[in-house]
């Protein structure tokens, strides 16, 4: 596995948000609460991106968190030529998937909400944002941090079918909606963990490849940044 490396990492969770360069920063006081109420707003987007928040505001909670994690990765997709972006895969793993939005849609069906009633929609949002046209996969796992997306990424990289893979693990269910669900359908907590894995080039930001759960790897690498600021 030595030829593969973790090229970039980001994490958002109750502990804070950040990437492997900046380290984790604590949420301003009301923000963790806001995530748990499904109320991420432009203010939250502005914590991770200087770009316009209008599209962000159209998204559901899962996509907002997933896109924030992808933005925090700071992976340099915008600078990549198109041929390179066609060789970046996006693999998602999730336990709760779109359950939060599914319940909201059942309560009030709206066309703008329907597009978000799929666990794979976050994949589409990430591809639109960074113009990534590579292969995609969305795995629904039987627990919060399965690590399945990373296993698949390694396989695809080994086969030479892609040059890099953005793996995203994302869980979020609004507290009030979670209360309506039986315990076994609720995720343990909320997080969005993103990781870019690819061939090692010896760059300074790289981390040795380690298998395991996305959330655990990302949390760990963001707790110990390479360059704290």
């Amino acid at each position, binding site marked *: 596995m030595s030829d593969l490396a973790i090229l970039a990492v980001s994490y958002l969770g109750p502990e804070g948000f950040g990437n492997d360069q900046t380290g984790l920063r604590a949420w301003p006081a009301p923000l963790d609460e806001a995530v748990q109420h499904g109320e991420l707003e432009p203010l939250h987007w502005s914590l991770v991106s200087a770009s316009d928040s209008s599209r962000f505001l159209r998204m559901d909670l899962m996509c907002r968190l997933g896109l924030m994690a992808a933005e925090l990765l700071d992976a340099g997709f915008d600078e990549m030529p198109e041929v390179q972006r066609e060789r970046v895969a996006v693999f998602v793993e999730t336990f709760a998937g779109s359950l939060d939005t599914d319940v909201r849609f059942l309560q009030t069906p709206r066309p703008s909400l*329907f597009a978000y*009633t799929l666990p*794979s*929609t976050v994949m*589409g949002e990430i*591809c639109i944002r960074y113009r990534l046209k590579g292969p995609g996969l969305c795995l*629904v796992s*039987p627990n919060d941090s399965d690590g399945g997306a990373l296993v698949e990424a390694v396989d695809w990289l080994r086969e030479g079918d892609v040059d890099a893979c953005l793996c995203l693990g994302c869980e979020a269910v609004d507290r009030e909606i979670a209360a309506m*669900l039986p315990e076994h359908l609720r995720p343990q907590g909320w997080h969005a963990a993103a990781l870019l894995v690819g061939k090692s080039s010896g760059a300074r930001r790289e981390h040795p490849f380690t298998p395991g759960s996305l959330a655990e790897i990302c949390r760990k690498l963001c707790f110990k940044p390479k360059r704290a600021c």
Partner: protein
Amino acid sequence: MEAAVSKTRVAIAGTGAVTAVGSGVEPLRQALRTNAGGLHARDCVVRKIGQSIIAGWVSETTLEQLRQKHPGHADSRAFLFAHAALKQSGQSMAGQLNSVPPTRRGLVLSTTKADIESLEKLVRRQPCSPATQRQIQPAFLAADLAAANQISGPVQCVSAACISGLLAIQQGATLIRRRLADLVFVVGVDLISEFVLAGFTSLKSLDPEGCRPFDKARVGLSLGEGAGVLALARRDLLSGPVVRITGWGSSNDANHLTGPSRDGAGLALAISRALTKAGKEPEAIDYINAHGTGTPYNDNMESLALQSSFGDRVPPFSSSKGLLGHTLGAAGILETIICLVAIDEQMLPGTPRLREPDAVTPKSLVHEPRPAAPSRCILKINCGFGGTNAALVLETESP
């Protein structure tokens, strides 16, 4: 953890289906021969809809037959359909793979909404058993199907809109290539529920007269429901001629969440990837089973993608959505079964409900089913929400 990919060849060992035309692959075969299928009207009491909907409903007769045959699983239609199709696929293998132990048997589930009817009940505070509540979560539905069918090897669940089925086949083949399993049941299931009807109605995507894929006058899709199962196995465990899974590819349009790209470039990219994986040139393809939903944008985009991939020599192609409706997470699997029937019957399936093709549609669109030389190489394509596209290459192989 390490994904050791081998060059193990993967073939299709068995099939099962529960669809609008009945339970089993035989009703599907009959429907393909006659080019007339299961779309029919049913009155729906759907909030803000409350109208008769033409769709590929699984009939009450089929449902009752399945409930009698599998009495322990009558509560959940999703589980029942998938379980019945799984049992059929086991029977279709005629004991060929009985020696494969449960630990070497895997399952990959493809679904967009799993047991969505139970979530509807839960939210409305209607009675819903704990067992079916559990199957709202797709991975638990997959685990329960595996447990009920003596499958104790790897279990995965793919949920990636309408390309879920093809991705699940890809994943099933990959589990075998990684030597994690010798036999993998790829199961696709989805229901026509109030949830799904409300969603597609709100997007104004349904054709009130029933879908007419690639037709000049098409205005939308028809939903479908049911389950399909493909049993994949190591080629060397099977005797006689087989159909192998040799290539797969997917892509993203990076353009729009609910609408396809206008130029078909994303789908063409997925096709190119699948052909490369299979080591095939475009000229090798004998037949294409298209996504062909019947929405104006999808079919137009697909026509452009086929022209881009095959130039002025687009192989014969057709859409099966007029037969079964759009079965969402089950579509890729049921339509792959249709490709297998086409190979077996030495025929090119037609495009049910087509009257007059759209001017942009390649001329090789098959209207009515017709006999054909045995297909050696077939391409199956699907597209979905989130800008997703997928392609799969099937090849016949003699021992």
